[in-house]
């Protein structure tokens, strides 16, 4: 009897593959077909969101721990890069890597405090992280530039703006590809299986011998590293850093919204979410200007996703495809149903209450 894990080509996977190739082709061609530099810069912003929410999804997707504080990690990556270039005299991209490593190192003590206990503390620490980094980077003006901001020199001086956009578009695209690749590698590894076990039932995973704290910490550090890279690359592209916008709760919440909307269990969920939310944000701004109503829209969308679609759009699409693909899937369901009928005594209510 075929099992799901052994069926290599399913309509779902085929559709995913086609979509991936199509996305890659469009993305690679985008700088050439974007009608003006503004739209190219919008593309970079959306890619930046995609990298950020994919990085977020290392923690959120694998372990189920929701971090609202990843905005701070991106901000640290950005400021780290900026400060290493301006104060440390490092070359731009050297500074980027060093800064991301520093962010990863900093994630160790943060994770130690946040991950030893269960979810609520993690969420509290993640929000506190944003608020405390904002305070520190505003207050420590002599080092960080304070509220006046920090100017990060361009890595390619003299390059015209449209060309500059083009280069960074590909840099962000490359970073996205690396982040997705690492996520995929973890997803199919034994480490990833342990992480998913934590997401499903942490006590149970621990009782089976999985060192859950160590697993969570490692993946948090990996997530911080990629988030730091995304933040640092943004700093090199954008050039002007201001604590209020670098250490913003809203950045973190966009990452969550994008990942959840796309689907946290899916490799491409955050990317899809970033495309939808990022493009929508820009579109609404251009069409309707900006009022605080965009906050309302963000909040309402987040609430709707949490209440009605906690698995995101990709799984919804996936189940649609599966319904079209009855032949293989139903064979398993029939057996399951038969077994269910045979075993349906006692404990059923228990099972229902657990799953309900």
């Amino acid at each position, binding site marked *: 009897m075929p099992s799901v894990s052994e069926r290599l080509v399913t309509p779902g996977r085929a559709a995913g593959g086609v979509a991936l190739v199509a996305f890659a082709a469009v993305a690679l061609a985008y700088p050439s077909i974007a009608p003006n530099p*503004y739209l190219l810069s919008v593309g970079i912003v959306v890619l930046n969101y995609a990298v950020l929410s994919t990085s977020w999804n290392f923690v959120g997707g694998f372990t189920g721990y929701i971090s609202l504080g990843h905005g701070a990690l991106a901000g640290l990556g950005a400021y780290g890069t900026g400060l290493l270039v301006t104060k440390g005299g490092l070359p731009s991209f050297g500074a980027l890597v060093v800064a991301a490593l520093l962010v990863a190192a900093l994630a160790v003590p943060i994770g130690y405090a946040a991950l030893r206990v269960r979810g609520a503390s993690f969420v509290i620490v993640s929000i506190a992280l944003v608020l405390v980094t904002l305070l520190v980077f505003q207050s420590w*003006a002599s080092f960080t530039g304070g509220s006046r901001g920090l*100017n990060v020199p361009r890595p390619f001086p003299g390059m015209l*703006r449209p060309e500059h956009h083009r280069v960074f578009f590909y840099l962000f695209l490359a970073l996205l590809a690396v982040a997705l690749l690492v996520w995929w590698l973890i997803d199919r590894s034994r480490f990833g299986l342990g992480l998913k076990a934590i997401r499903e039932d942490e006590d149970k995973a621990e009782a089976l011998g999985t060192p859950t704290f160590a697993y969570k910490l490692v993946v948090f550090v990996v997530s911080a590293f990629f988030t730091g890279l995304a933040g640092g690359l943004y700093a090199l592209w954008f050039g002007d850093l201001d604590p209020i916008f670098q250490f913003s709760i809203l950045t973190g919440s966009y990452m969550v919204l994008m990942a959840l909307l796309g689907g946290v269990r899916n490799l491409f969920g955050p990317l899809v979410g970033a495309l939808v939310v990022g493009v929508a944000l820009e579109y609404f*701004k251009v069409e309707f*200007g900006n*009022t605080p109503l965009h906050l309302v829209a963000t909040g309402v969308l987040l609430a709707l996703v949490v209440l009605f679609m906690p698995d995101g759009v990709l799984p919804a699409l996936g189940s649609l495809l599966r319904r079209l693909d009855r032949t293989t899937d139903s064979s398993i369901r029939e057996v399951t149903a038969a077994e269910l009928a045979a075993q349906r005594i006692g404990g059923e209510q228990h099972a229902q209450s657990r799953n309900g």
Partner: protein
Amino acid sequence: MTIRTTKRTRWATAVGATLALALGACGGDEPEQASTDDPIVVGISLPLTGDFSEPGKGVQRGYEAWAKITNDKGGLLGRQIELKVLDDQSNADRVVADYEQLIGSDQVDIVVGPFSTRLVVPAARVAEEYGMLFVEPAGAAAEVFQQGFKNLFYAAPAVASDHYNHLAEYLLALPAGQKPTTVAYAAMDDPFAQGTAYGLKAKLEAGGVRTVVDEVYPPNTTDFSSIAAKIATSKADMVVGGSQYQDGVNLIVALQQLNYQPKLAAFSTAPTSPEFAAAIGNKTEGILSPTGYTQDAPYESNKEFVEKYTAQFGSPPEEDEANAYTTGQVVAAAITAVGCAEQGDCQKKLVDWVRANKVETVVGPLSWDETGKPQGAHMIQQWVGGEIKIVLPADAKETDVVYPKPAW
């Protein structure tokens, strides 16, 4: 160029005069391109929401007044002025995207500056890299002029650190017994606000006046009780607040709650606001503030501005409005003199013209150094008898400085 093709119907009435003016202004310059029938689109990004939305809206009104007054007189080069305003949410990310959109996507002819120094630098960089002239109404801090921008001009009489120059001169000239000996400073960590206070601090310290409190607070501070406690217990002769609006009000109320009575109190921005007196319960007596603009200023264009602005908006203009209007005047002068307004080579000509010339504005004649820094100082106003009046410099004063100030 025929009348039939130049104007949209709604502006038809203004056509005759416009055409005449435009021809006059252009003189013997190169013949006008086909673009004459289009309006001159001026792109602006402003904080209409977020931290700076209040002054942002003031700046917006100033620009609107400038466009209306100019259009009523027939526009520039025979073309009407059309403003395209985007909201940047007081956010540097947005301000860059906005100018990117204005220049790259909307193809505006001219861009002018946003509000708040923090947003001016990122915005100016975009304009610089697209080679656009960038006259701005709100980038008063020193670092704006240290970025090496070649296209940027600040359309106001003085940069932040020069705002208190007249007051510093006055205080240092006082006889030894009267001169304040200790000063407490509290400044918002904002390039403009802190720049004003620290400009005065540098000059007073150089003159031997001791600093006893030196506090810097972030822009979102709302609780001033501990800063006020420090200032009050220091019993400084004089308190200087490098403030925007609300923080200044809060600090003054907190100081009054502690019953602190200095000989002199100077705050930037806040005391010149029309809501100021009510906000601190009318205990305004003796509070000083620098100002770059007053409705009573004798300059020629100012009368027209105050009159028409009041007719348009129902109340007279404040400093933010005047700065935006001034920005418009500078740009208009350049466009009129150079005879073009579009992206491309024209922008370089506009920049060169502004750099080389003096422009008459509602805040007086303005000229700039190499970095785009204006060459002037601010007037000092003081609340006397329930009204705010110019007290310094001596040649512009409406009344004498009251020193030491009465209890508030």
